[in-house]
């Protein structure tokens, strides 16, 4: 911050600097600078301001960010995610590659948009996440959105550290990659998954020795109905092998949602 004020000192009026304290967005145009409801268009002040920016072209570092208007909201959102998730990101950065962290940050941002009930932005960000990380973006988001990231994945870092003193990073990466490939205790039902696939995924998990439960997460009435049909058919086929806890709720955006828990009574062979 000091660097930025040093940059402004001397040529911007005090009244303008006071406004900057409350408005971090300084809009720079060819013939004016605007902060909040204050605009400077005095040519002499503008010239000093632009010269001050130009002075940094030789230096190795900048005291401020200069970003395109279209990226401003993205910047603020990523900054918020980084601040809110500072502790967990710091742990993850010690254990995962930069590419994984980028994917997690983007997925956290989608989660933030959903929590804020900004449906259009969330949908758009989710599409971008899937485009940038086709094999894992949606999975990472699902794990974050369902709470598994904070409840299971991040605590696993400490467990790996305690268990494997020399290669804990490698072991955690193995665990993380395995989770992204196949998550035994959860299934996420999306719009492009049909009933047959849901059933197949449940049966695959029911065959796992010692698996205590399977949580099926679905959002949207159509997805909830798909799960209902599959469970109804499985109840007939696997009578007495599991019990069901059906938790229904409405998301902040008003959509029907369900977390259906299949508790295993007896393992299948």
């Amino acid at each position, binding site marked *: *911050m000091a660097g*930025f004020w040093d940059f402004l000192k001397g040529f911007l009026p005090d009244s303008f600097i006071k406004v*900057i304290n409350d408005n*971090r*967005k*300084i*809009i*720079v*145009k*060819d013939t004016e600078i605007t902060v909040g409801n204050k605009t400077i268009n005095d040519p002499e002040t503008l010239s000093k301001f*632009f010269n001050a*920016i*130009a002075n*940094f*072209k*030789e*230096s*190795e*570092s*900048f*005291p*401020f*960010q*200069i*970003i*395109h*208007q*279209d*990226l*401003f909201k*993205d*910047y*603020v959102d*990523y*900054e*918020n*995610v*980084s*601040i809110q998730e500072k502790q967990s990101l710091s742990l993850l*950065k010690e254990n995962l590659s*930069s590419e994984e*962290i*980028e*994917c997690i*940050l*983007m997925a956290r*941002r989608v989660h933030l948009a959903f929590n804020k009930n900004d449906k259009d932005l969330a949908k758009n*960000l989710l599409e*971008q996440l899937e485009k*940038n990380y086709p094999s894992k973006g949606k999975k990472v988001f699902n794990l974050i959105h369902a709470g598994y990231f904070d409840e299971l994945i991040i605590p696993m870092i400490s467990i790996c550290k305690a268990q494997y003193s020399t290669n804990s990073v490698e072991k955690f990466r193995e665990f993380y990659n395995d989770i992204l490939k196949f998550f035994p205790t959860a299934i996420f039902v999306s719009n492009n998954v049909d009933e047959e696939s849901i059933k197949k995924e449940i049966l695959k998990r029911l065959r796992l020795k010692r698996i205590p439960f399977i949580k099926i997460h679905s959002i949207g009435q159509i997805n909830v109905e798909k799960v209902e049909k599959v469970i109804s058919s499985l109840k007939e086929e696997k009578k007495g092998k599991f019990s069901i806890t059906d938790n229904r709720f409405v998301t902040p955006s008003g959509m029907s949602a369900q977390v259906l828990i299949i508790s295993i009574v007896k393992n299948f062979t």
Partner: protein
Amino acid sequence: MSEDDPILVFDESSKAKIIKLLGFKEEDSLLIDEEGLVQTNQQYEPVSAKDFGGVLKGSKIVIKKDQLELARYFASK
């Protein structure tokens, strides 16, 4: 990093001026500095004037106008 840090924001109408102030110019649609070096993002991909999304503080990282660039920036901090 502070959430109070001011941010200079430009739009398409002032992009050319910002590019010039930063000491860049356009050559074969790419951004080059005064030494003639093509500007690259964190992934060492050339950045064109059309895609120019700004310069981030610290080590003066040039970014494309794409939110992934910001995810990369915050991931690397």
